[in-house]
């Protein structure tokens, strides 16, 4: 079995690189915290492919490359670094690295490189896709956007009436995205805050998907105020608030969608994704099964309060067939 050695001093970066390896690729993965560890591992026969960071303590990426260059070792090396200066690219290539990927690394870019250098076999996308959904047709996208807009407006209205506050309505973001892109999208939300999340499956005839609701941890005090909850906001209470807010938003949004599309959705039980975690952690557990998804991204704010919540509706590729059909009727009218 091919052995992949990931060398980075940051644990997060190591994990991320490991996650970005092609899912269907059977390899042994090893880790090293700096160049010296990497070399020891390679001398022990590990690391046919080395994913190497540049800035590390003890022995940095350049030194490691130099050492490899002068030794018997002959791993294929791809450098992964946040250093985006052209000079750095040139230098590592002179030192024998195959190529350079900028951080943050994405599964797509890594796969492309691995193919390019023949490290993995080019596998054609399995079975010709039943429908062309690589790009969203502009008309259809407008349509999704509008439908989402209306549903959101209704949800916002309900929310405003239940909470008695003014709800700032966002412009919904509708996109067809891949797994790696979902991660990136979530990283945008992640910026500075920890979040608690809930996901809930929903299903109607021919359409199914999942609603992902995330509330930033700094919002809880204010949410408690608005909902008129007294007492200290402990974990238990936060979960309650999270569930209530999610119920209202997901429920009303789905009702809005189902009304317009003439579809009835049933909802599964909400599942707590976790409390006080970073978003990437929240969704890392289940990224294996799907490739593409239609994502409708809504982010709500409440005027006068420090409340941020994000609702993402993720619909499966198969669902789009039914949705497109329904929407095309709307377009004709």
């Amino acid at each position, binding site marked *: 079995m091919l052995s992949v050695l990931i060398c980075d001093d940051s644990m997060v970066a190591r994990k991320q690189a490991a996650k970005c390896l092609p899912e269907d690729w059977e390899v042994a993965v090893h880790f090293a915290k700096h160049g010296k560890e990497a070399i020891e591992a390679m001398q022990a026969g590990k690391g046919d492919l080395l994913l190497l960071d540049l800035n590390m303590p003890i022995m940095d990426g350049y030194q490691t490359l130099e050492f490899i260059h002068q030794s018997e070792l002959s791993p294929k090396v791809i450098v992964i670094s946040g250093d985006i200066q052209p000079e750095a690219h040139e230098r590592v290539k002179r030192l024998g690295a195959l190529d350079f990927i900028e951080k943050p690394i994405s599964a797509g870019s890594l796969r492309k490189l691995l193919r390019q250098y023949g490290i993995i076999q080019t596998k054609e996308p399995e079975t010709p896709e039943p429908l062309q959904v690589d790009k969203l047709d502009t008309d259809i996208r407008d349509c999704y956007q509008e439908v989402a807009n209306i549903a959101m407006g209704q949800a916002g209205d*309900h929310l405003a*009436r239940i909470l008695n506050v003014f709800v700032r309505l966002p412009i919904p973001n509708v996109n067809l995205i891949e797994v790696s892109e979902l991660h990136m999208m979530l990283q945008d939300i992640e910026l500075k805050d920890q979040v608690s999340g809930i996901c809930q499956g929903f299903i109607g005839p021919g359409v199914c998907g999942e609603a992902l609701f995330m509330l930033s941890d700094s919002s809880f005090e204010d949410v408690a105020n608005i909902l008129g909850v007294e007492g200290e906001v402990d974990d238990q209470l936060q*979960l309650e608030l999270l*569930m209530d807010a999610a*119920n*209202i938003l997901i429920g009303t949004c789905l009702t809005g969608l189902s009304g317009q599309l003439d579809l009835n959705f049933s909802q599964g039980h909400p599942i*707590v994704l976790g409390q006080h975690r970073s978003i990437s952690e929240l969704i890392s557990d289940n990224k294996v099964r799907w490739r593409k998804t239609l994502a409708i991204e809504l982010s709500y704010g409440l005027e006068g309060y420090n409340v941020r919540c994000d609702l993402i509706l993720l619909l499966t590729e198969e669902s789009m067939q039914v949705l497109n059909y329904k929407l095309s009727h709307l377009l004709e009218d």
Partner: protein
Amino acid sequence: MSTNLQLSDIAEFHWMMDMLQVVDVGIVVLDREFKVRVWNAFMESHSSKLPSDVRDKSIFSLFPELQENWFRNKCRPVFDFKGRAFITWEQRPYVFKFPNYRPITGVEDFMYQNITISPISNVVGKVDYVCMMIYDMTDVATNKKRGEALEVTLNELREKLAKAGEKVV
């Protein structure tokens, strides 16, 4: 002819009611005053309260430990906006305290519950009733708690191992 139709209607109604009775999910229908209108066999067995005992009585008087304000707030969006409300065992282990009914193999003292509250509209679309569905989640909860306990033990062992490793170096 019409009598036949009526008979088959009644027969159908009968087996549908029967189905409500035997399904292994608690079903409770409440009106706007939170009085019990339907109480199926699951609820009867686990609470030891007969349908005739609970019918038309307020759920709050039947279960004094149920916090009235909290529960009314949960049901408000269901009555007002026809949304569904969910209560999970992670959030509240139970709403109705039912003892564990597996005295030999059960490890928890009570039943963990997931609850869905759904609106029931009348012919003009107004919500007069809500339907509560109570699911037994005890096995899931037990497994999850076991898993978490294992993770903690594992982490402790890992830390010990790391410390031991440092000493050797």
